């Protein structure tokens, strides 16, 4: 039996082990019995200690996270083509892990009863599964041995991509750069420069004798203690601290810290009495850890496909988590993360452009709006973007727009692939309303400024936080200048913007209790975005625009600048800046915890201290709103 769908299932499966071992006919028969499952983000596929299902699973689209609840450790993240939930096939016992959709996913569920005969018929299939089970990896044929299939207790290591791979074996450089003991320091320095290494191993009969690093050359030669003609043995650090070649990243880091050194010499058995096999530098360890901005930046630059960036984005999330765990100041955190996110977006546009036959007909600029424009987007949220292109003669306008709409479509799709959901209100450059020529944009913002109805105010508050992601900065500057000319002429616009900003609902009720959502999917949750962050964001925007400053988009930075500009209000603006950062951090932490945007907070999960912290920011919000009300004479208008 075969139908259109089972044929597609078979097409997909035949690429991945163990199905690649099967005869097409058998695979067709098996594919016919498959169920296709759709899982929304965060929905559970099976629970830890849950009854075994009659199926095992293959990820067709999306990703599935396997987790041990007791330790909350992520055991594996399964991607397209990965199999999981094999336990019932191997042993008649309950699941040892919980499986949850990490993102919206489509799974193929293969009935075990139908699959079992093939494990007997095909040696390859049986071997794959056996090896998977025995070596405890998901795919024993992959050399990375990355995943843990079944999560035996011995293998319960917290792993998420390269996120927390502390326990993974390090990759050391096997190409040893060595010198004999009597080599001159000069020749060693020359060799190190040529080979671009930071340390030279001094060997005798293959056995490590000492090590010379950049630091030794600085401390011993440049200071004049030894002449440049000195021999290696005079300045080398000896004896060498050696380690076995099989060590984990965590062990390597510990070894370096313990001995205060930046290079480890690895030998056959870990003692200086066997041949040196490799060197491991601090830099290697950093690369291995992966979650470091420089490495990620390099990875982004090197990526050639949307999908590669998707994996990098996961690592960025890992980095973010690390930063928050280590309590690194949010200003720095958001700077680094925004910078990386920005690089991802730039790369997406570059890839999209490369795929196009024709280069852009005129100059253009890609704008990020909303939270991304404000560099406050730490987690994945919806995309909000727009495009400006250079003015063209009337008769070329529709052709030019068509080009940029097509480009935007590709970019929007790319952004979706790497994890930015489409904007449900279609505020995206692929919407003809958000893909305009410079003069069209000028007309549009002029209209908003001179006719500030509720819709216009809403749109300007989203749009006016734009920042350029890619393209020609002059186009953007010209638009900004135009906006300021407009607001200068029509100061009443600010009053409207202010009244819009004051319409956010208050965070606390009469008795200073939290106001929670009364219905919907988030009933009894606290909406930290709408009730606490938005008033600050809106307030900062209107105040900074009234000072004619466009270069600063970040809310916390805007308040800091305002504190400088208005010394008499310094206290309140500094408090606002602090509150913004605190709330953003709060939201980000919640988001990481629940793998969502962090917008809705379950109050009962907060500690008392956290609640007090939250409430403290509310006081600041109230003061800010009073200031805005007074300054922009909102009451007069309302009255």
């Amino acid at each position, binding site marked *: *039996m075969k*139908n*259109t*769908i*089972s044929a*597609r*299932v078979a097409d997909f499966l035949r690429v991945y082990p163990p199905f690649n071992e099967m005869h097409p006919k058998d695979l067709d028969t098996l*594919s*016919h*019995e*498959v*169920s*296709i*499952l*759709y*899982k*929304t983000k965060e929905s559970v596929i099976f629970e830890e200690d849950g009854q075994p299902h009659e199926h095992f699973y293959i990820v067709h*689209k999306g990703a599935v996270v396997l987790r041990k609840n007791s330790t909350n450790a992520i055991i594996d993240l399964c991607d397209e083509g990965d199999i999981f939930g094999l336990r019932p096939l191997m042993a008649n016992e309950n699941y040892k892990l919980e499986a949850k959709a990490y993102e*919206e996913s*489509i799974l193929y*569920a293969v009935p075990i009863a139908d699959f079992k005969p093939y494990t007997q018929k095909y040696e390859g299939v049986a071997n794959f599964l056996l090896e998977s089970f025995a070596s405890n990896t998901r795919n024993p044929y992959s050399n990375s041995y990355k995943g843990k299939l079944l999560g035996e207790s011995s293998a319960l290591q917290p792993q998420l991509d390269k996120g927390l791979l502390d326990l993974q074996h390090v990759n050391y450089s096997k190409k040893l750069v060595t010198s004999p003991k009597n080599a001159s320091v000069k020749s060693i320095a020359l060799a190190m420069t040529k080979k671009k290494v930071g340390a030279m191993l001094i060997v005798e009969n293959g056995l490590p004798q000492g090590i010379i690093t950049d630091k030794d050359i600085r401390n011993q030669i440049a200071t004049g203690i030894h002449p440049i003609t000195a021999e290696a043995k005079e300045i080398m650090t000896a004896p060498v601290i050696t380690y076995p070649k099989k060590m984990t990243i965590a062990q390597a880091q510990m070894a370096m810290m313990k001995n205060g050194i930046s290079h480890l010499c690895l030998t056959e058995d870990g003692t200086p009495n066997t041949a040196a096999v490799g060197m491991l530098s601090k830099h290697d360890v950093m690369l291995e850890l992966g979650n470091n901005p420089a490495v990620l930046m390099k990875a982004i630059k090197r990526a050639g496909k949307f999908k590669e960036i998707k994996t990098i984005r996961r690592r960025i999330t890992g980095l973010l988590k690390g930063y928050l765990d280590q309590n690194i100041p949010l200003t720095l955190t958001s700077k680094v993360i925004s910078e990386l996110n920005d690089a991802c977006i730039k790369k997406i546009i570059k890839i999209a452009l490369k795929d196009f036959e024709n280069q852009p007909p005129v100059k253009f600029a890609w704008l990020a709006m909303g939270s991304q424009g404000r560099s406050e987007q730490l987690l994945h949220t919806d995309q909000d973007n727009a495009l400006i292109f250079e003015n063209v003669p009337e008769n070329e306008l529709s052709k030019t727009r068509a080009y940029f709409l097509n480009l935007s479509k590709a970019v929007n*799709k790319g952004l*979706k*692939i790497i994890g930015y959901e*489409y904007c*449900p*209100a*279609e*505020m995206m450059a692929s*919407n003809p*309303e*958000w893909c305009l020529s410079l003069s069209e944009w000028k007309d549009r913002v002029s209209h908003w400024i001179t006719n500030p109805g509720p*819709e216009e105010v*809403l*749109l300007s508050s989203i749009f006016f936080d734009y920042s350029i992601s890619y393209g020609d900065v002059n186009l953007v500057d010209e638009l900004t200048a135009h906006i300021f000319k407009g607001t200068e002429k029509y100061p009443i616009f600010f009053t409207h913007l202010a009244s819009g900003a004051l319409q956010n609902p208050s965070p606390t009720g009469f008795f200073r209790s939290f106001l929670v959502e009364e*219905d*919907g*999917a988030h009933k009894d949750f606290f909406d930290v975005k709408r009730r606490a962050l938005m008033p600050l964001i809106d307030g900062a925007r209107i105040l900074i625009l009234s000072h004619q400053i466009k270069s600063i988009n970040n809310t916390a930075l805007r308040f800091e600048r305002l504190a400088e500009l208005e010394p008499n209000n310094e206290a309140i603006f500094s408090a606002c800046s602090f509150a913004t950062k605190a709330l953003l951090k709060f939201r980000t932490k919640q988001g990481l915890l629940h793998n969502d945007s962090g917008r809705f907070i379950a109050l009962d999960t907060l500690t008392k201290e956290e609640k007090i912290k939250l409430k403290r920011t509310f006081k600041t919000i109230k003061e800010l709103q009073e200031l805005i009300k007074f300054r922009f004479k909102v009451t007069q208008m309302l009255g």
Partner: protein
Amino acid sequence: MMRFLKKMFRKEKRNYPDFWRAYVKEFEIGLPESLEEIRFVVFDTETTGLDIEKDRILSIGALSLQNNSITVNQSFEVYLYQHFYHAKNIAVHGILEKESEPKITELEAIQLALSFIGNSVLVAHHAGFDRAMINAALKRHGLPKLKNKFLDTSSLYKRTLIASPLLEKQAHYSLDEMAEKFDIPTTDRHTALGDAYITAIAFLNILGKLEVKPSFSVKELLR
């Protein structure tokens, strides 16, 4: 006279073929109340054209969907004999008269389809057209209209969009647009079952979006 008419009418009703009576009997049991228990049948018809009176069904593809899961072996794909053929449609659907799929008559197709769908909730993209096509076929064989509830993914999709002053909702969203939005491969576009599959994945996506809305209820969905 009246009595005679009534008798005629009753007689005609009694004369419906067994398969139709079996189909009607399925509706004696109401639909389950929870979304997980409701069986949806997502389907698509490929036709010789868009004229409900003149054009004919070339093929029907349908698949069964329950609790967010599609069981592949419970899908349905039939190709119909065609005496009546519009050359222009071959370009769209690529279905040629001589193609190798075994073909059945319209009546056979109706019988099989009715027993497959039962009392399920039917889902299609621009469902109005598919429903009209099938009802026209039923009428040709002296049968009443379909009794199932219908959902249209095109109008359901519209409900997932947020009202915004700069968003003009389109009157219709094509299946290609759906596939684009939800990143569904279109390899099997323009085969009935292939289109049904795209519609099913789009439907699941849409349902996921609608389900979290505060106003969502199964009753409202099926209204």
